[in-house]
């Protein structure tokens, strides 16, 4: 009986760690030297991942983990220190507003809400990056980030959805 319990626990642990590992992998992919994707996309993939998993599998994506992933990104140099951390936390926080209602609603609604979340995050990141740089930075970067977030969402959400179904079946 104990063994069954242990096995179940291990498999649950494994399932719960997939979202975090996937997000970290995306982070690594975005800092690869010869990436197929343009520079401003770095970060978008990670934010989409954090939003998706915070929304659909919250126990696998707690706030501290989001912060930690953001911090690793910052330390890797993707954004000024703290900016990525804050972005990740904000995405997580906003994904948790009326989470259950949102996660049950249609794909298009979720996409629209994510666009809203992205807008807020892009603005906050722009202000924080300006504070970190000691002067206003170009708003263009924030704009790119915002648009890329929206563009990246459907593709990644589809892939994550498939992954999630696979995980639940196992």
């Amino acid at each position, binding site marked *: 009986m104990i063994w069954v319990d242990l096995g179940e626990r291990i498999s649950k642990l494994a399932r719960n760690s997939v979202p975090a590992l996937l997000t970290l992998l995306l982070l690594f992919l975005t*800092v690869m030297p010869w990436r197929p994707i343009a*520079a401003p996309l770095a970060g978008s993939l990670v934010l989409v991942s954090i939003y998706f998993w915070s929304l659909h599998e919250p126990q696998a994506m707690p706030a501290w983990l989001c912060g930690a992933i953001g911090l690793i990104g910052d330390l*890797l*140099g993707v954004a*000024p220190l703290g900016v990525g*951390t804050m972005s990740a936390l904000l995405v997580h926080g906003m994904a948790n507003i009326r989470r259950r209602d949102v996660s049950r609603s249609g794909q298009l609604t979720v996409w629209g809400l994510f666009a809203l979340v992205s807008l807020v995050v892009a603005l906050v990141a722009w202000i924080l990056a300006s504070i970190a740089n000691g002067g206003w930075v170009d708003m263009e970067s924030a704009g790119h980030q915002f648009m890329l977030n929206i563009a990246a969402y459907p593709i990644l959400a589809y892939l994550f959805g498939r992954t999630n179904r696979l995980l639940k079946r196992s």
Partner: protein
Amino acid sequence: MRSTSIGAASPLKLWFHRFSFVLLVTTAFAFVLIGRADVAAVSKLRMWLADLIAPVAVAVSQPVDATRQAVSDVEAYIALRSTVERLQRENDELRLWHSTARNLQAENLALREMLKMTPDPRASFVSARVVADSSSGYVRGVIALAGEAQSVTKGQIAMNGVGVVGRVQEVGKNVSRILLLTDINSRVPAIVERTRDQAILAGNNTDLPQLRYLARDADIKVGDRIATSGAGGAFPSGLPIGEVISIENGRIEVQPLADLARLEVVRIVNYRLTGILKRELDVDTAGGSGRSRTSTTGGVGAAD
């Protein structure tokens, strides 16, 4: 999920969750302020993490590298004929340049002899593989696989085969962070090659850094080449940087010669301009050890 843990959350638990979230957000904001202050401990932590992550980045990039290699092999094979033709043309041209250069070199040497000019400091370099490109909307930088162990120090210049790429910003044990020319914090003393006008090349997080503080009467045109000026002593003079590609309302944009978005190998050059290295340790590292270090850093051969 069949999990029961997210069933009924007690008010206390909810309060705790909110409190911890606010705490995390506050911490993140504190990070922004700490980062602004440029604390040495943060830099250390950053490089420690980079040291830790470099092998992972290498491992992750392996399959991608292999695929890319295969694709470029096929492409090269297809383009073989036209490549040969192009190279032959280039070769003819370069031969001409070669003889011109030799003549000039001899002449230069003779003139220097007459002037009793001190020779330029000799340079040593380390070729290092780029393992991570952390360029984003807010930062432009790469992490290269060479650090303290390869005697890379802060402030050294990074180049690739065609021009200046940036400058070493932080150094870890086996890795270093290079601030690219395009980063908003990058400032490089530059000179317009044709007119010898001095200016500062300032990055702005876009692909095209701007030439600033150019004299008002300076005569600058699209197509002018920009090189390092050596003012301030941080850069040696005459290293090629880029070309002016647009001039609009006093906004002069420069296209760097090096393709900063596709950096694979950088040469970190030490011109010993600041005289950090002691004379008694001054072994000739121009060729030999630079190359031997290359093998230990996993870098690819020097592109001279």
